[in-house]
């Protein structure tokens, strides 16, 4: 027994070492990029001159601090997704940042240097309206939070609540704004639509209502953007319908009506249909705001105005101008305005806020990316130079979520592509061959034309290779003479070429905002980007590689199907995945909603695979649809089947293609929606190879796998969510015949179900609601000891149902996503990649998920290397392929084979992107990283010299003997 245990321990320890990371491999072939999302609030730390901090809060519920010199993250806090983690407001004072989270539910104060939480206060429920810092006698002491029906005041240093007061008439009045000018009073502004404005005045010390008044304002529709408080408590509102500005001193008791100033008197006019926006600035919360403000009259027209002695005077008109923002440094407040320069560039200029005069030599030229979107947010960081003049840097956010940080005279300091925080789908495309490689390939591709020309061609290509090699050597020699730092292997789109093991690929990523990226998988450099305008939010994307790089000189071709979520109407975007350029191929118009797409192995004369699009009337559109393709489709139509899923009706239906590209329903499976709903349907990956058809048993017999390429895994969840009655259903359905091959039910289980369907197995994870834990279950299908037809699999001719084995295990952690490794020929053992909510990616050997794991060890199971069954799945940190480089909110894992059988390329995307390589069976086909060249060569040389010396000695000895 003891030796058995020992042997087991040895075999297990061998297993454990598989696919672990060595410390010296860190950063060698893996990289991580961290993102934050679309910036909603950004504040520069103006506390000290040397500060490099930039605090941002984003729509991804991320609160982070960026280094404004490099754009790197100092720290980042990722809150819960959804409305509970939504950041409502960001305020900053000194070293502290106050964040209101979850519709005003939580108030958090962060220390901004290291990113530590100072305090956290739970507020009463109620929908959040506004938050403001409140100063008393030049010191900011409190933070006020305005809810729909209450206002509360909190101490800034401890978070303790000073007072909370209910707002009067909160069921009719919409309170929206807080204002405090540092005079011991807090004003809460609310309004009743089309009726009047309500102003309530609170005492800071105890929250007593000092005054409450309502002022007639029949034109009022919203306070938020069209009103602002300026210059020691003057409420200023703008209205588009009456084309007027309205002012009202907040504190004075005698004013009971707003003073109307027609915009015409200022020679201004609001563009029709545009909601004018007022922007004021309050540099110090303990002091009243400035008298200057911006009024935006149309999308590209701003004007700087000033309120002086109850009169409004324009200081400067910016027409046209895209964006305008205030910034303060010390005592000086400036305004930065972005104006269009020409079609491709904008210029940003600095103006003094109190006079409107332009500062000299402050122009920053901002070059717009021709493949990007328009700028839509401008954040200004002003600072005092040594000569007391104001310098500034700007951060521009564009529609396609690019953050660009610029300094004078237009140098881009850094750039962040925040669209990548929301990758929807991706593909990896092989890089093209270099010219010489292509030449060689071309030699084999062409048809033979006689012996002599072939020989000549061969010689010429060899010569070209020699030439390339010489050039390479020369370059090496040339680079070696230069200092190390100046030699940089910059990856550009022109130097891209496939490496010898095809480890470097092009990652084509599609983001939710409609921006496409081409990223070099080796370094993570963005090589091209393309912003698709007019993409509706929540669109569904499907990326299809129609032609790979293997068909030189035809360029590779990717097709993106963009489907509107509501209407289902789709459009196609065809592009070259290596260069990101749009292909000028006529795409078919899709007038009807697209239900399903199908990539056929049929290729046209240009080697592009044919894409079939099925619309809601079951009509099929082929792309490309040349004569050649249609001819081929007619020939193969009888063997083209596809399936449609209608989860709202619980219907799965199978169709067959007819010769005239119409379709014919051949089967239908209805899963009653009253009991359960279809949550996911997945087939097997098309590019998957299975190397062995069976498994050798301990008694040398073979158990053949049931390798049905048409098998669909359908996962259902019960509509009843009670923990005793909920269940998860698994159906394995043949996609051609509609036959249910297998059916399984997990009782007392609920989703979310993550699953991988591959080879002859299906692995799924569900939540066991009885035992409150995650469980893995594995289904494996076998044909048995004999193969029915070993050469060809046909769904129509498989009389015997497969044998199904199943086993379940406890997984002691929650799961965010699941994927399996994939290699070129499928020889390497498979691993499952499990994304954990903590951000780690666990590489779990499939060996642990084997339904043949025995409960009792026998000679045969040992022969087969089966691990004895243990209910709990191990999690070891050595199996984390991304060590401490955690990936926040893992959304998907993409695996791709490389040219090496041992190596699988892995891209993990979520809020961050992480790329690495995994070796599920270790690197058996290349020399390891730690291969000891020194030892081998020293042994070789040692032996060589030893033979030389001993030879010499032997000669001497022979000579001596001869003399004797």
């Amino acid at each position, binding site marked *: 027994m003891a030796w058995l245990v020992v042997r087991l321990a040895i075999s297990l320890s061998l297993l454990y070492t598989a696919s672990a990371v060595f*410390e010296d491999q860190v950063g060698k072939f893996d990289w991580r990029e961290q993102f934050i999302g679309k910036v909603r609030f950004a504040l520069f730390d103006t506390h000290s001159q040397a500060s490099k901090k930039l605090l941002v809060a984003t729509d991804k519920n991320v609160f982070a601090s960026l280094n404004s010199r490099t754009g790197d993250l100092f720290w980042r806090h*990722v809150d*819960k997704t959804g409305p509970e983690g939504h950041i409502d407001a960001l305020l900053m004072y000194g070293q502290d940042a106050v964040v209101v989270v979850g519709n005003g539910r939580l108030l958090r104060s962060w220390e901004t240097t290291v990113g530590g*939480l*100072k305090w956290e206060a739970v507020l009463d429920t109620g929908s959040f309206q506004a938050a403001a810092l409140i100063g008393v006698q030049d010191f900011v002491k409190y933070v006020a939070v305005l809810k729909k029906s209450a206002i509360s005041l909190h101490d800034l240093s401890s978070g303790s609540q000073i007072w909370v007061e209910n707002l009067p008439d909160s069921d009719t009045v919409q309170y929206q704004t807080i204002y405090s000018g540092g005079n011991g009073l807090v004003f809460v502004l609310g309004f009743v639509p089309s009726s009047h404005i309500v102003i309530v005045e609170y005492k800071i010390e105890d929250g007593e209502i000092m005054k409450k008044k309502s002022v007639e304002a029949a034109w009022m529709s919203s306070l938020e953007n069209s009103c602002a408080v300026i210059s020691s408590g003057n409420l200023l509102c703008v209205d588009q319908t009456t084309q007027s500005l309205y002012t009202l001193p907040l504190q004075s008791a005698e004013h009971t009506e707003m003073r109307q100033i027609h915009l015409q008197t200022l020679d201004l006019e609001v563009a029709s249909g545009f909601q004018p926006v007022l922007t004021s600035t309050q540099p110090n919360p303990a002091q009243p705001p400035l008298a200057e403000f911006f009024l935006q009259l149309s999308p590209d027209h701003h004007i700087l105005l000033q309120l002086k002695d109850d009169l409004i005077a324009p200081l400067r008109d910016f027409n046209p101008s895209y964006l305008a923002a205030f910034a303060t440094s010390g005592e000086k407040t400036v305004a930065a305005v972005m104006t269009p320069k020409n079609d491709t560039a904008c210029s940003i200029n600095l103006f003094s806020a109190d006079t409107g005069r332009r500062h000299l030599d402050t122009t920053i030229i901002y070059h717009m990316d021709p493949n990007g979107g328009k700028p839509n947010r401008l954040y200004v960081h002003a600072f005092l130079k040594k000569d007391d003049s104001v310098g500034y840097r700007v951060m521009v956010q564009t529609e396609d979520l690019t953050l660009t940080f610029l300094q004078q005279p237009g140098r881009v300091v850094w750039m962040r592509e925040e669209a990548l925080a929301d990758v929807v789908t991706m593909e990896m495309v092989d890089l093209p061959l270099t010219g010489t490689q292509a030449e060689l390939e071309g030699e084999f591709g062409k048809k033979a034309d006689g012996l002599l020309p072939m020989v000549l061609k061969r010689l010429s290509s060899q010569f070209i290779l020699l030439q390339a090699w010489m050039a390479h050597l020369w370059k090496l020699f040339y680079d070696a003479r230069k200092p190390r730092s100046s030699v940089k292997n910059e990856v550009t789109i022109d130097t891209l070429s496939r490496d010898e093991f095809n480890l470097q690929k092009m990652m084509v990523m599609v983001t939710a905002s409609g921006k496409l990226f081409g990223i070099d998988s080796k370094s993570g450099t963005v090589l091209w980007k393309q912003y698709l305008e007019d993409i509706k939010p929540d669109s569904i994307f499907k990326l299809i590689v129609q032609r790979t790089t293997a068909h030189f000189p035809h360029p590779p071709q990717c097709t993106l199907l963009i489907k509107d979520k509501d209407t289902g109407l789709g459009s196609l975007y065809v592009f070259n995945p290596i260069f990101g350029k749009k292909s000028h191929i006529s795409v078919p118009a899709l007038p009807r909603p697209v239900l399903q797409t199908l990539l056929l192995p049929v290729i046209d004369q240009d080697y592009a695979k044919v894409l079939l699009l099925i619309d809601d009337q079951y009509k099929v559109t082929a792309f490309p649809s040349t004569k050649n393709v249609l001819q081929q489709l007619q020939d193969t139509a009888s063997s083209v089947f596809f399936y449609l899923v209608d989860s709202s009706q619980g219907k799965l239906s199978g169709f067959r293609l007819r010769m005239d590209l119409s379709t014919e329903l051949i089967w239908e499976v209805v899963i009653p929606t009253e009991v359960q709903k279809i949550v996911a349907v997945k087939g097997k990956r098309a590019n998957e190879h299975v190397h062995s058809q069976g498994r050798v048993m301990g008694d040398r017999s073979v158990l053949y796998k049931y390798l049905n390429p048409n098998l669909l895994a359908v996962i259902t969840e019960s509509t009843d969510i009670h923990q005793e009655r909920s269940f998860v259903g698994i159906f394995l359905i043949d996609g051609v015949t509609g036959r249910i091959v297998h059916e399984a039910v997990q*009782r007392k289980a609920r989703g979310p179900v993550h699953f991988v369907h591959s080879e002859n197995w299906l692995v799924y994870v569900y939540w066991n609601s009885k035992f409150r834990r995650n469980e893995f279950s594995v289904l494996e299908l076998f044909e048995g000891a004999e193969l029915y037809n070993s050469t060809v699999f046909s769904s129509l001719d498989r009389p015997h149902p497969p044998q199904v084995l199943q*086993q*379940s295990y406890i997984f002691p952690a929650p799961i965010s996503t699941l994927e399996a490794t994939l290699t070129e020929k499928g020889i390497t053992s498979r691993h499952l990649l499990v994304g954990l909510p903590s951000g780690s990616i666990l590489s779990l050997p499939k060996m642990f998920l084997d339904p043949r794991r025995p409960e009792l060890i026998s000679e045969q199971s040992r022969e087969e290397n089966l691990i004895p069954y243990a209910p709990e799945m191990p999690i070891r940190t050595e199996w984390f392929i991304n060590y401490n*480089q955690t990936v926040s909110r893992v959304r998907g894992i993409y695996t791709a084979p490389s040219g090496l059988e041992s190596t699988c390329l892995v891209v993990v995307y979520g809020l961050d992107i992480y790329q690495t390589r995994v070796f599920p069976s270790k690197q058996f086909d290349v020399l390891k990283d730690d291969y*000891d060249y020194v030892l081998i060569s020293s042994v070789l040389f040692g032996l060589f010299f030893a033979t030389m010396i001993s030879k010499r000695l032997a000669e001497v000895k022979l000579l001596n003997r001869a003399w004797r």
Partner: protein
Amino acid sequence: METRVRSRACACVALLLFALRASLGHEHIKVQEEEETPEDVKWRSPEEEQGKFRTPEGEVRVQVSGRALVPGVRTQDWISNARVLLDGDAYVGFIREDGGFSVSDVPSGSYVLEISSPTYRFQPVRVDITATGKMRARVVDYIRTSAVTRLPYPLQMRCAGPHHYFIPRETWIWSDFLMNPMVLMMVLPLLIVVLLPKVMNSSDPEMKREMEQSMNMLNSNQDLPDVSEIVTRFFSPPKSHGRAGGGARATVGGAASVRGGAPRRRSKMNTAVTYSE
């Protein structure tokens, strides 16, 4: 240890059964749920605590709080990339600069609370919250899920050490190679075989003489029988006469040849011959 193994085995049987039955699509099996014994339940009432409230539907929402500690490390150095996670990232909390944390608005249920930090490892804790908002903490046991091993509440999360992500490389060191018993066993005889004759055959006559002398010194006690002779004597059959003679001769030879070297070797050969008889 014994009990643990048994429980694992039981659970595995149960699971197997479960899986098998489930796969056959039979009716669900009724595994008796182990009810918690009342004396185990010493619920902590959070009435006095802040953060508890009821939703308009009457469901309770409570705040789970505790402290996390990494001994020997300042909190500022590790909290900026640590998070408190309840059941994955269903509920998220952050750690304060004093090591305390709280997760707000958690509805009733049973949750696994863990502190996720890329550097430090913490043991997860199961937190149970009743419908009235009372809560307790216990050790996470995924196999016997109803086993209650109480932990203090508010939670005390203590770091269990840093994460080990890397496995060490197998390095090749000369001393390791040389100290290998196999290598030692091979190298030493090799040295003897190769070097000794070289030393012996040195053509310097003086050296030769010295060697001989030293050999004699070694064999100074001529009366002492040779080891080989003893062995042969022991193993050879008693009827053999030649053996005794040979042995005697050898002894004589040894005594007679003060010059050592060759004669001595001959005597050895004699013994060998005797043995072969």
